Structures are given as C-alpha cells and as structure tokens.
C-alpha cells in the first residue's frame, strides 16, 4: 500500500476531533502500523487508548474503524496521558524534592527517606515538619504542603515523629542597638553555655549554637513514599562536605540546582519569620542555589552521596547542615 503522508494528514485533520470524542481515545497521530508486534512499512492513523477493550465491550460509535477514507488505523494502548506533575502537586508515592509540610506551615521540601531502628522516615527540617518547635509528635504532615493545596485529612502522608529543638536567641531588648547577642533559651537538652557563669554582662554569655534544623516524620504507609529523589535518583551513600565540592539539590521551588561549597565551619545567624533569630555553627555555605520552599532539600555530591540538609539562605548564599550532624542528632542511617 502506498499512501502519501500529506493525504493522511488531511484525513486526520478532518477526523481527529471526531475520534477524540470517542470514549477511551486519548490521542491521534500518524505512524507505521504495527502488526503482531512488528513495525510494517504502512502508514496508519494511530489511535491511542486508555485501555484496549474487546469489541463486545464497546458501543459501535466508540469503535475505531479498520480504515478511515482508505487509510488503515492502528490502536495503541498508552494509558491515560497527563501533564508531568509539578513538585507542588500531590505525589503518591512521594519522592524526595516535592512539597511537604506540617499542617500549620506553608510548605517546604521532602528531603529523602532515612532509617531509624529499621523503620522508614521522611527527613526534612524542623521548621518544615515541626513548625519551628511549635508541634507535637503525632501531628499530621501533609503532601503537598498547605500553601500548595494540601488538606487534612486527604493529603496527610505522615505524622511528626521527632525533631531537634531549635534554640533561638532571646529577642534583643528595645533600645539596645543590637549590641548584645541576647541570652539564649536554656530549655533544650543540647543547650550548652560556653563561658563563665560569673560574668554578668549578657554580651559575654556565648549564645547556644544549633547544629541542625532537622526533623523526621513517619509515613502512614510505606507505599506512599519513594526512595527516589526527583531528577537525581537514589542516594548511594554518605559523604563529608569539603571546600570546593560540587553539590546539587532537588527542591520544591527551584527544583534541580547545582553549586559549590564555598565555606565550611560556618557560624551563622538565621532569621525565622519575624524577629526570631537562631545561631547555627559547623554549617556548609554554598552560593545561591535555593529559595523559600526549598528548605529540607537533600544536598548530594556529584556521585549521589548525601552531604547535607538545606535549610536557609540569603540572596547570594545557601546554608546547609552537615548530614553527619543531622544523622547523629536523630540517630539515623540510610
């Protein structure tokens, strides 16, 4: 058979709308007809269907005719065709790199899956899964996060299991011109005051320094989460961040981005919402590779080893917890 493609195009143009109106047909196009699994040299009008059904289950008007104006047809089962889902959509199973959050926050990023005592947990930041200390174990975690349309109870994917408390600097008293660093809260179990208690001026009391902004949540159903990180794949192992190391992350807002560790041993004051500041030490700093909503992203090296947990940034920098500090604070493994 020898039908030229231009005439088939004209036939398709006239009939595609009609074909797409039939139940089950999701796409039409021109391709070589496949007979018994083998591609033939005959051009055909290919009708893609959600599922191939026996003729007995189809009404006559929904059936694909064997030929249309003399051109053979072919039926291809593709399943339903959807737009590639966004990171802010609902994902089941949910991989690393998609929107997630505690019921009372906006949204952050699902970092990756980790293990504790043989159980699987979702790793992200305290300020993503535990609302910056304002949460209780058992609180619902939504995927996507609330600002992305996640609603309780339909979108709950996990419950908060454990978080490392963030110790905030006490707010500066008014009129103090920002000189005093403030006395840090002593409530945390990890609180450690360095320096003499006999000193009287607040400015001499070294503030409590945090190492991580981290929390884990337990999925209600292990089938609802995936070991993959979007656009990265699976984690190969752990690695220590070093100066000059090339890194990448996969996050809710800026998706896959790359950068380089430009500073180590970083002590940094980080703003949380309005007015709250927490001091972190032993952090990694990279150039700009994230924005709001990327918090909680897993940070990996070029060979897919896990290096850190992203949690903060400025216009020109990204601040990352060392993964070894995250794992030791929460007793985690891969």
């Amino acid at each position, binding site marked *: 058979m020898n039908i030229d493609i231009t005439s088939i195009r004209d036939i398709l143009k006239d009939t595609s709308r009609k074909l797409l109106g039939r139940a089950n047909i999701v796409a039409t196009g021109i391709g070589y007809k496949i007979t018994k699994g083998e591609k033939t040299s005959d051009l055909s009008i290919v009708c893609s269907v959600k599922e191939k059904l026996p003729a007995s289950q189809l009404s006559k008007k929904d059936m694909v005719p064997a030929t249309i104006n003399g051109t053979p047809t072919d039926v291809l089962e593709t399943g339903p065709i959807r737009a590639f889902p966004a990171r802010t959509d609902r994902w089941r199973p949910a991989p690393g790199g998609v929107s997630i959050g505690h019921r009372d926050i906006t949204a952050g990023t699902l970092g990756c899956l980790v293990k504790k005592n043989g159980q699987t947990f979702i790793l992200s930041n305290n300020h993503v899964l535990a609302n910056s200390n304002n949460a209780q174990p058992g609180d619902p975690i939504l995927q996507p996060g609330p600002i992305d349309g996640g609603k309780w109870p339909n979108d709950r994917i996990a419950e908060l299991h454990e978080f490392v408390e963030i110790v905030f600097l006490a707010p500066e008293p008014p009129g103090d011109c920002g000189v005093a*660093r403030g006395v840090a809260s002593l409530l945390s179990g990890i609180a450690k005051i360095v320096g003499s208690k006999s000193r009287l001026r607040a400015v001499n009391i070294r503030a409590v320094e945090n190492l991580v902004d981290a929390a884990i949540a337990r999925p209600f159903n292990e089938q609802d989460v995936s070991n993959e990180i979007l656009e990265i794949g699976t984690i190969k192992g752990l690695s220590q961040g070093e100066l000059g190391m090339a890194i990448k992350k996969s996050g809710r807002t800026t998706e896959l981005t790359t950068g380089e560790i430009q500073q180590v041993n970083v002590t940094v004051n980080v703003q*949380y919402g309005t007015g709250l500041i927490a001091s972190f030490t032993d952090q990694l700093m990279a150039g700009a590779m994230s924005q709001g909503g990327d918090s909680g992203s897993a940070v990996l090296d070029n060979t897919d080893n896990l290096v850190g947990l992203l*949690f903060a*940034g400025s216009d020109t*920098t990204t601040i990352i917890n060392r993964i070894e500090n995250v794992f030791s604070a929460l007793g985690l493994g891969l």
Partner: protein
Amino acid sequence: MSPSIQEIKEKHAGRFLAMPGVVSVGIGRDPDGKPVIIVGLDGPHPQTQKKLPRVLDDYPVHVEIIGPVKAQ
C-alpha cells in the same frame, strides 16, 4: 605549633557576630586557593567594616555582603 585557621575562627566568631550587621563567619579560600576567614554582612556597614581586622594570626580576613540569611 601555631593555631589552625579553625581555632582562630572559633576564637573570634562570637566577637565578630556581636558587631552590627555581621551574620556569618566561616572558612573559605581566596582565588589562589589559600584559606581565608570570611565574614558575611547583611548589608553595607562601614563602621563594622572599618573595625574588622584585615588579618588574624596570619590568616587573611575577607568581608562579603551576603544579605540577611533566612530560613527557607
């Protein structure tokens, strides 16, 4: 033995962070690959920039304006 750059940074970080505008103190490299102490500011602060030392125990101190650091 002379102190390491980590020890020097730890010793002075608290004092630098108490200066107006200082938001970070870390260890990086200069364009030649030599270790330097890097002080990050949330914006221009001429007084603080004047007060910060250029060198600490033979390690150069660089100042960079990085902007306010926020949880994301």
